[in-house]
């Protein structure tokens, strides 16, 4: 007698399978407390006596609970992500222009500083040997280059040092210094480059007597 499960009542309003057991949909509604009378009464009465539907309900309970927890977790993750990006975009919008200007100013400042502190390119001085200007060809040198001069002092009175002047073709002084005598002559180093034009390098005695003049063409 009790080998068969009582059929759900003839007035059943919920879905049943052909076997007379409760459908998965009805059990799911029951599990989620969304079943109303009289379907609720029918399914509860059936569950009192049907172990198969009890087991099925257990599985549905597990599934519903897992889906609920998982959906909640994913929902919370989505909300956190949304909140984070909203916050970031709000901050960027508000200060974006300011930050962009600040960064640009920093970059320009760094470039300017680099240019300002960059040492001059070390260029080797232009070396020249100057001989007596009367009757000898004039020497040429490039504009703007430092000059390393060796002046021929053969035939001149010998001193330990000589005053030296550089004048342009109008006689205006461009540079002066004291140069030491060496074995092969006098070496002079002009630290600044000269503009284009004709120049004369004058060598004097310590008593300011002009000993020799050398011509120089800056091209």
């Amino acid at each position: 007698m009790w080998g068969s499960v009582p059929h759900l009542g003839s007035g059943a309003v919920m879905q049943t399978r052909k076997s007379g057991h409760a459908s998965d949909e009805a059990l799911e509604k029951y599990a989620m407390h969304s079943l109303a009378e009289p379907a609720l009464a029918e399914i509860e009465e059936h569950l009192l006596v049907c172990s198969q539907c009890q087991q099925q309900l257990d599985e549905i309970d597990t599934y519903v609970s897992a889906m609920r927890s998982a959906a909640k977790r994913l929902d919370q993750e989505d909300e956190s992500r949304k909140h984070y990006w909203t916050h970031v975009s709000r901050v960027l919008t508000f200060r974006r222009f300011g930050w962009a200007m600040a960064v640009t100013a920093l970059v320009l400042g760094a470039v300017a500083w680099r240019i300002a502190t960059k040492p001059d390119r070390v260029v080797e001085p232009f070396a020249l040997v100057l001989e007596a200007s009367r009757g000898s060809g004039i020497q040429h040198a490039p504009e703007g280059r430092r000059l390393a001069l060796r002046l021929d002092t053969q035939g001149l009175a010998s001193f330990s040092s000589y005053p030296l002047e550089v004048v342009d073709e109008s006689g205006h002084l461009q540079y002066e210094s004291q140069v030491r005598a060496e074995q092969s002559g006098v070496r002079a180093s002009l630290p600044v480059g000269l503009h284009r034009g004709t120049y004369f390098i004058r060598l004097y005695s310590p008593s300011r007597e002009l000993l020799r003049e050398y011509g120089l063409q800056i091209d």
Partner: protein
Amino acid sequence: MSGFNTEGLSAPLETSVTPADPSGSSPETAGTHWVDLVERIKTQDQSGMEELYKVFSRGVRFYLCRQLGPQDLEDKVHDTFLIVVQAVCRGELREPERLMGFVRTVVRRQVAAHIDQAVHTRRQQVGLETGSVVVDLNRNPEQSAIQQQHEQIAQRVLHSISKRDREILTRFYLLEQPQEQICEQMNLTETQFRLLKSRAKARFGELGKRRLGRRAAAHCS
């Protein structure tokens, strides 16, 4: 109730219920059976009471555990049966063919009374007595681990579907919106909605079986 032998009821009987006949019994046959059973109980037929317990104990236990938890479950089941038997013997069951409905009513009243008692106790008692036992309703570590695994499988299912489908399932399972509302707002037919749910459930079952299979293989190796 003098002369009423409750030994058969107090001793736990085998609660296995004979597997259901797929064809099921007709409502008329079932009704006749209940009437017959009620008559046997009224005459204090021990076999009648044993059959009553055999048929309903699992279901009553299932219902009470689901509603109130596992604490003192056997006592509650026993109390329920006592109430049913006493009521039947007193002739309070006017429609014997509605025995199932009657048992259901008794069980629901038991649940309501227990909840009522619990609320009342909480309101009246301020502190706990020293040495009193408080039930921990949290899951044990094994149950927590199992639940966590189920949740991970469900997350995989939700990740594997489109954002729209995920929203539909979230509305149904988490926000508990009714099917009609979801279908209207998400522009779905009832069939599409059911199909989505059944696919998700099938995927859940499939992933769960795969995980069990992997675990079994790892265990055996």
